[in-house]
């Protein structure tokens, strides 16, 4: 492999072929996953990506600034000077979006709910990435019986309806009862268990591919310690599809959180605001025509999932040369099996 040397020894970086080299060097700043894709995208895909990013950033801002933005606390039933809100009040001057069946302010609960959602998403993804990558790395690199067992277990869990698994996990962790942090952690861990197999599968298959590369063998031959090979040579080259999965999982995590909350397994109303739980409480309201208790938390969920999914979808399309928008390469031959695989993979990543 003498190519890098020959690049350096080339005397004149004036030809167009070599002009690419300095560009690549300085683009480290722009190599952060999302920004790179933003530059790469055109037309419709750029529109989707930008829309998604705007919604996502807005969501994060609301979550962080909830204490400032929300007029009241999530479990407040009266104003500071003791004026009671009343229950199921239609939107009015005191409660801009009305009050719930328990007399909470809908607007405040929607805003605070963003914070709960963000915390759960971050905790769940952080845990599942860490565990999933570690297992995938070890399993893929060393192979053997451990690999076989982990693959079978991951497949079994993966085939299982994630919501049911999350229910089982939240029973295990908190017996269904929860405080703010207990509830957030319980939900996050429940979601983690659901997601670990996905990261595991993706990382493992990448590791199996990278493991066979000559540079790994060379590293072994010159006596690089195994941990260093794993972290430097293998892991660095196995994470390219992670940003897509992370964004798709973030939306899935939020949906699972809301689903758990809707079944009464989320975080209790007095501990924190949670959109799914609010929708559960709003079920009775709907029948009597009270719309504001369900519509606002519901729209909040839809918006956040929509934003994050748009980002994930666009990243997915941009990562896949066959879906990326650009000059159309007509008549390019593709094998049906490969398409089936990619279809299954992208669907799989979502469900």
């Amino acid at each position: 492999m003498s190519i890098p040397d020959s690049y350096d020894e080339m005397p004149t970086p004036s030809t167009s072929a070599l002009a690419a080299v300095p560009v690549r060097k300085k683009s480290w700043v722009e190599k952060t996953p999302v920004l790179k894709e933003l530059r790469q995208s055109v037309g419709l895909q750029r529109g989707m990506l930008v829309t998604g990013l705007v919604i996502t950033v807005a969501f994060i801002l609301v979550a962080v600034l909830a204490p400032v933005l929300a007029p009241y606390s999530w479990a407040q039933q009266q104003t500071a000077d003791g004026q009671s809100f009343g229950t199921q009040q239609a939107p009015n001057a005191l409660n801009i979006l009305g009050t719930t069946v328990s007399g909470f302010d809908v607007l405040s609960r929607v805003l605070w709910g963003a914070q709960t959602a963000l915390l759960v998403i971050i905790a769940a993804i952080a845990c599942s990435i860490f565990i999933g990558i570690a297992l995938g790395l070890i399993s893929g690199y060393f192979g053997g019986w451990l690999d076989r067992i982990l693959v079978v277990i991951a497949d079994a869990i993966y085939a299982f309806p994630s919501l049911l698994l999350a229910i089982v996990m939240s029973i295990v962790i908190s017996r269904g009862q929860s405080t703010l942090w207990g509830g957030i952690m319980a939900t996050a861990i429940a979601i983690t268990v659901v997601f670990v197999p996905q990261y595991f599968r993706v990382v493992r298959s990448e590791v199996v591919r990278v493991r066979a590369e000559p540079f790994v063998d060379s590293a072994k031959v010159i006596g690089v310690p195994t941990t260093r090979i794993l972290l430097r040579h293998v892991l660095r080259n196995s994470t390219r599809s992670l940003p897509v999965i992370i964004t798709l999982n973030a939306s899935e995590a939020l949906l699972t959180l809301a689903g758990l909350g809707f079944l009464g397994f989320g975080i209790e109303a007095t501990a924190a605001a949670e959109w799914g739980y609010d929708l559960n409480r709003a079920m009775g309201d709907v029948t009597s025509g009270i719309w504001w208790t369900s519509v606002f938390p519901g729209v909040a969920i839809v918006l956040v999932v929509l934003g994050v999914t748009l980002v994930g979808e666009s990243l997915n399309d941009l990562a896949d040369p066959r879906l990326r928008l650009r000059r159309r390469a007509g008549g390019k031959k593709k094998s049906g099996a490969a398409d089936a695989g990619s279809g299954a993979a992208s669907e799989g990543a979502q469900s």
Partner: protein
Amino acid sequence: MAVDAGAALAPVQPRSKSKGGGGLWRYILVRLVLIIPTVFILVTTVFFLMRITGDPITAALGGRLPADQLAQRIHEAGYDRPLIVQYGDYLAGILHGDFGTTITDRRPVTAILLQYGSATLELAIYALIVALIISIPLGLIAAYRRDRWQDATLRVMAILAYATPIFFAGLLLKLVFSVWLGWLPVSGRGNTRTELLMSGIDTPTGLYLLDAIRLGNGPAIADVLQHAILPAVALGLLTAGVFLRLIRTNVIGTLGQQYVTSGRSRGVSEYRLLTKHAYRPALIPIITVMGMQIALLLAGAVLTETTFEWKGIGFMLAEYLKSRDFVAVQGIVVMIAVVVAVTNFIVDIVAAFIDPRVRY
């Protein structure tokens, strides 16, 4: 899913292929054997997870019964034995088709499945029909008009369908069509008269529509259909979003094939090219992934049934969750796992029958 585990068999592939028909049976056998570890792992995982933190009787009745009575009931149910003995018992029970007895109303879980399973099946079938009716034509349009405004609109709609939690879609549908417009019933599978009629049938299939048609009772058929529309649409929309994306991706793949171009050069109509040449070959991956969506459909059914008080397995699961009857929860969860595993198996076999390339 089977691909990873089946990879060990890959070297044998040329030989089994040359045997022709034998390859298919071999594949079915291997795939059948592979269900066993999947189900076993799930059962084991769920069992130990549920028992790590305590016995189900304390969870269900703790605080409501005096300590000695509680201990008595724990002893009766055998929850004071070593965990491994209980596990052996539980496995043996499952092999005999016994998924446990609920704590709150002391019914065998299998009886709950028999009584409420048909309702879930009926809902799933309706939802599947809705999903297919919506997603196939729209998916074809999106693929054909790729990257035009039609495609963009449809894709955003598909994402929106995915982004809307099923219970929120259900609540919105209820609000608009039942409460504001008053066109459709709010919840349940039928009005009181239909329910009475259904409980009086000798050999019910449990599928209300089928039963009503068998009775030839016009008003009952209409009533059952009216009750089914909103839940079916709520669950079907979510699934349709996933199907649409799937059909679009796969048909875009086949539309780029050379035989489509050659068909076009021979003057085959664009409609025929799309619906026959491009769509047919794309069906195999579509069917496979649709089979995998059964898990999604079942999870969605839990939420849909809760939203519409549709008395199926999912509704019962939510009820038992509320009353903290974890034996019932465990039984239902394990049963759903078995159903999912078996469905995936059937889907794989169907795919293998359609497409010889699958049979490694």
